[in-house]
């Protein structure tokens, strides 16, 4: 899906403010150690890492844009496109697999047309499949939708949960703290 990625100047100001107040490397080694953390913080603030923000981080820490994108595309946590109005993690750890998470993944593909790190065509929902583990295995299979965990899911109960979230409308900061 092609969509014009926009970022507001005020979000970028928040990034600048973050770097100014919290990122003071004493040398270039420390600056490099801080890149990943800074990008995580940017994603917390904006929900994704826009090109403009990547450049600001690179300039502040003295590393190239190239280097930043090398990291953004290697590490699974980062998004370089804006997420949908709702954000959902679907855990696919071993315990969730044993509990039937593959059926949930298939359902997302069939019903919403999303697989892996994708956003539905109506821009409502971004799905991220967690290849590691959300660490709440006793709830398996489990999703984390707009900050709330829903466990012991079937395809039906997952669909209901998603429909309910979409009916409620966007949650402010739904993308944060992932």
């Amino acid at each position: 899906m092609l969509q014009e990625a926009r970022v507001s100047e005020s979000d970028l100001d928040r990034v600048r403010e973050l770097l100014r107040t919290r990122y003071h490397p004493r040398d270039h080694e420390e600056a490099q150690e801080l890149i990943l953390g800074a990008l995580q913080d940017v994603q917390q603030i904006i929900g994704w890492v826009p090109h403009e923000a990547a450049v600001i981080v690179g300039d502040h820490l003295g590393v190239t844009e190239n280097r930043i994108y090398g990291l953004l595309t290697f590490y699974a946590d980062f998004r370089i496109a804006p997420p949908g109005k709702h954000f959902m993690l679907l855990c696919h750890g071993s315990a969730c697999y044993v509990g039937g998470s593959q059926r949930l993944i298939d359902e997302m593909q069939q019903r919403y047309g999303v697989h892996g790190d994708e956003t539905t065509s109506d821009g409502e929902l971004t799905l991220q499949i967690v290849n590691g583990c959300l660490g709440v295995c006793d709830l398996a299979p489990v999703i984390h939708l707009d900050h709330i965990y829903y466990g012991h899911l079937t395809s039906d109960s997952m669909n209901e949960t998603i429909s309910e979230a979409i009916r409620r409308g966007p949650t402010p900061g739904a993308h944060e703290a992932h």
Partner: protein
Amino acid sequence: MDRHLAPTKLTDRAAFNVLAEEAAARFGAMATGSVWTVSVGISECSISKGALDTFEHLRMKLEDSGLRYQLRRVGCGGWCWAEPFVTVSGPGMPLILYGNVDAERAPDIVAAMQRGMPAFDLAVGTVGSEPYGDIRPTREHPFFARQRRVLFEDCGVIDPESIEDYIARGGYSSWAKALFEMTPDAVIDEMKIANVRGRGGAGFPAGIKWESARRARAQPKYVAVNSHEGEPNVYKDRRLIESNPHLVLEGTLLACYGIGSERGYNYIGGEHVLALKRFRQAVNQALEYGLIGDNILGTGVNVEIRTRAGGGAYICGEGSALMYSVMGERGQPRTKPPRSVEEGLWRRPTMLNNTETIATAPSIIRNGGEWYASMGNEKSTGTKLVTFQGPLKWLGVIEVEMGVSLRDLIFETSGGMQDGYSFKGVQTGGVSAGPLLEDQLDVPVDFDSLQPLDAMLGSGGFVVFDESVCAVDFARYLMAFNRYESCSKCTPCRLGNPALVEIVDRIRLGNGRPGDIELIERTSKHVIELSLCGLGQVAPMPLLGMMKAYPAEFRAHIEDGICACGVCPTSRRVTTAIAAGG
């Protein structure tokens, strides 16, 4: 709930001892005082079950209760199955653990307190050794009976966001002991006597590692703690950090002192948000008291602690990849030698320990290496954190002495299978080894006993699966994980793992060919022998393990196109076979 004593920087040991006595007195007063103490477990696992709502409801009810009370936060106690949990002690009443206290049930606790009674129907047990009425001690509960809590001793007991709570329970006394009574060599000697083996999976003796790091002549040198924990069924390290961050921090300080380093790193998976927050907070608190930083307690010893966040790549749990990630690079392993103890972070000697390994150091320094070595068995000493998942009754983080049998852990401690499920196997070693069958479960859980069975202790994550899980499909899942997480640096892993997934996929689809088993074995051999790092070298193991454990299932898929579990999208031949009673 934040007791904030304005922290003053401690400048000598006497000042630390005064603080420790005050903190212990205050903590002890909770159990004996005339006020009710109500503690709610707040960690990522309990938050997922609504613990914050429980806390809020308790707060509102307690405010209107007319009782004298203290409401506090504690960490995760490992009993996921009882979350959200609350512990309550009060006038004339021992500490009682209540389980599954959601927001709706929270008022029941307060109502019972007002009657001066326990909430009997929510009680899991009393925390001490004495029963209270019909409420038996938790230690008699099968989930707790076999446990020996060392690392998790204070988890669910102390407020993880309070350094004073940690100090009250003896925290940082090992650090003070090392600084004032022990040479670095003496610290290493205790680690060697304890014979702690690396909890990350390899099982290399930590004391030997510390010694070789001490011998590295280049300066500066560093300690790095691996709290990445990206495996698909392991969450013990993040629970430990969420519940007792200072324990991991104190262990890191002892390692720095032992090897002669002035800087320690803790690399925590970026998705472990609460663990990151609480560890960073712990570092700041320790800095305020002068327990880290420059000229610690007036000794002239300096240690700086840096917390670094990962980015969600499994490979960063591998030593050299972790170092690259800390340095702001893509986490791709390199060939060894040089080993990181010679050339690690910023090409300086770096000693890498797993979170759980480093967390053993404070109790070893406090109680002595011999005390530690007296637990467990001869070759695998001490305790191990293990997690069990799957359709079992009681899930959580379990701490047992090394050597308890897998059968006991599954059928006693974890309560056995849930109703309606029957045991088919248990996957061991995360994504790096094979499963074990019912008749193999008497094996002791330690470093050396599992290997001859092609299983592995790994980081202690075990996944029990039932008869509805197809071995071929499960093998495909585990292989697909390794394919996805391959860092793509070396060819055998980058191309071999997708090839293996492809072969398993055609078997799942009912298009398996004669010779596919041999093809898998041959391809696996390439990946195992030629891959650059430890992760590639074990990537095909779960597939080989599944083939060995369930050969008939693989044969049925390949030769007859039958998936007896009805999981695999095998071709129409299956439908016929099942219709025919296959």
